[in-house]
């Protein structure tokens, strides 16, 4: 596609608003579009999403494509790949960005295969190569032990973007842009999945992704009982509970608490890791924190390579003393 042009962002919507990742991608997409001297477009897909077009413009889009159809209410692979394929063939963008979300990580690879091009998932940096004008796509690999930079010679160049890796532009309600409605034109019989039910696993208290303090426990906590002590500290700091994968796999806390490469990515002001060794896969989810504090009995634990402050010792002894002092300080 030699005449491909423009950057297209798939902007997801939740609870009637653009998701944070959508605004972050529009911020990044704006930079890429300027570097290419091209336009930035957003696409909104779903049911009842047309109201969000102005919001996408306010966050940087020049053009917004709206594909609003009741059959698109739930994310279903066949339906979403089909409408994205149709749009990509119609507007021939040079770059397509999607969020590294449940939707984006499912949609992007199939779309890339459908369009005979390549995708790079979970990018943390995207730049235009000044000489070739191709997209340089940086993604963590080997669980975060390394980073790889990829390019691809075919258009569209597709990338999914990790949350909190890019910054959004300030919302500017006075920005003007064009809104274009596109018919979904779906054949219902070609959608081979049905969403029967959506189950929310409630975790009490503050939402992990939004918390300004996260208290996480790992295998070293040893059982569900120990997490009660972490909860006590989290409560004193108005924070949320996180965990490493073994703590979730063992059923000590809900799977929804998992922090890391294949769990949640958090960037709180304070991240407190207790009985966590600091595997690259876990760190992938928490190194965005401003201050990292580690409690570990092993002075050589990898967590101390990224922590700012630490205490070496059995957490069963060091943590209660810490919690007690914290309570005094925050109440006093």
């Amino acid at each position, binding site marked *: 596609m030699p005449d491909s042009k423009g950057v297209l962002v798939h902007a997801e919507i939740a609870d009637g608003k653009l998701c944070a990742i959508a605004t972050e991608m529009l911020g990044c997409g704006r930079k890429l579009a300027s570097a290419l001297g091209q336009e930035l477009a957003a696409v909104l897909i779903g049911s009842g999403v047309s109201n969000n077009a102005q919001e996408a413009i306010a966050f940087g889009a020049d053009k917004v494509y709206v594909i609003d159809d009741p059959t698109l209410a739930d994310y279903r*692979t066949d339906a979403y790949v089909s409408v994205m394929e149709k749009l990509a063939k119609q507007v021939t963008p040079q770059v397509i960005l999607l969020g590294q979300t*449940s939707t984006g990580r*499912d949609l992007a*690879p*199939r779309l890339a*295969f*459908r369009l005979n*091009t390549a*995708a790079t998932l*979970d990018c943390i940096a995207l730049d235009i190569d000044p000489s070739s004008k191709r997209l340089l796509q940086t*993604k*963590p*690999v*080997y*669980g975060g*032990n*390394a*980073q*790889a*930079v*990829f*390019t691809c010679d075919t258009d569209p160049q597709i990338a999914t973007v990790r949350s909190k890796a890019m910054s959004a532009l300030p919302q500017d309600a006075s920005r003007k842009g064009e809104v274009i409605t596109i018919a979904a034109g779906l054949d219902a019989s070609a959608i*081979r*999945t049905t969403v*029967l*039910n*959506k*189950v*929310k*696993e409630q975790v009490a208290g503050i939402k992990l992704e939004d918390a300004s303090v996260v208290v996480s426990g790992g295998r070293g906590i040893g059982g569900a009982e120990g997490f009660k002590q972490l909860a006590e500290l989290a409560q004193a700091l108005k924070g949320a509970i996180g965990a490493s994968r073994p703590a979730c796999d063992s059923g000590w806390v809900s*799977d*929804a608490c998992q922090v890391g490469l*294949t769990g949640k990515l958090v960037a709180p002001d*304070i991240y407190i890791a207790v009985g966590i060794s600091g*595997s*690259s896969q876990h760190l992938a989810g928490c190194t965005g924190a401003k201050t990292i*504090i*580690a*409690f570990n009995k092993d*002075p050589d634990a*990898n967590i*101390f*390579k*990224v*922590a*700012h*402050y*630490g*205490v*070496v010792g*059995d957490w069963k*002894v*060091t*943590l*209660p*003393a*810490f919690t*007690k*002092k914290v309570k005094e*300080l925050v109440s006093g």
Partner: protein
Amino acid sequence: MNIIVCAKQVIDPEAPPASFKVEANKVMPPAGVPPVISPFDESAVEAALKLKDAKGGKVTVLSLGTNLLRDVVKKPLSMGADELVLLEDPAFAEGDSYSIAYALSLAIKKIGAFDLILCGRQAADWDSGQVGLGVAEILGLPSITLARKIEVTDSKAKVERINPDGYDVIEISLPALITVSNEIGAPRYPTMKGIMAAKRKEPVVWKPADIGADPARLGRRAKLVKLFQPVREGKVEIITGETPEEAGAKLALKLREIKVL
């Protein structure tokens, strides 16, 4: 029920982070740490064996790579899988998600009838999460990613797909491709009987020509420009005290002093 599982040999992702080395855009295998089946692929094997326990049938494992250590790639057999097919050839060494999905789909067509293809949600080396979906796209199959539970009834599967807030229950028509996450449950340990059976079983080995692969399509679409290790500046301040309790309390005071608390 016929299930095909795609399982890949990788450098052990649980090897100590300090042993991880990149040289000249390549990852150096850590000395003395043997490779393993990528953990999510082991989850896919476990998912297949759970279905086999419930429904009977046959589980065929397909592994693509170079220098495949028989002890490693035979692990799914010792867990209870029935057949092992290896795509082993230097021509596969430089592949990316596109060429690998292409080669796997050709091999799957050659294996023949199947109801379900299972893959891990992402491989522990490149963390791409694309090959399974690519196979589905090439074979024209419906797909679901990130499964934590799979139940098969007649010509359909009911799948619980994880998301950040819980999970969706999705029905899919078979044949289909499903990628599996660790929430499916810990992979079972090989049994003594399984280990003996795996020892006796010789894998089927196919070369690109055996699956009719077009050499031109075994190259990369995603070009690797650079591979590097991010520098992490280690500057931890360890708080100490006369007793461990004192150290804990002093840490809280320190955080107050620097206005973190």
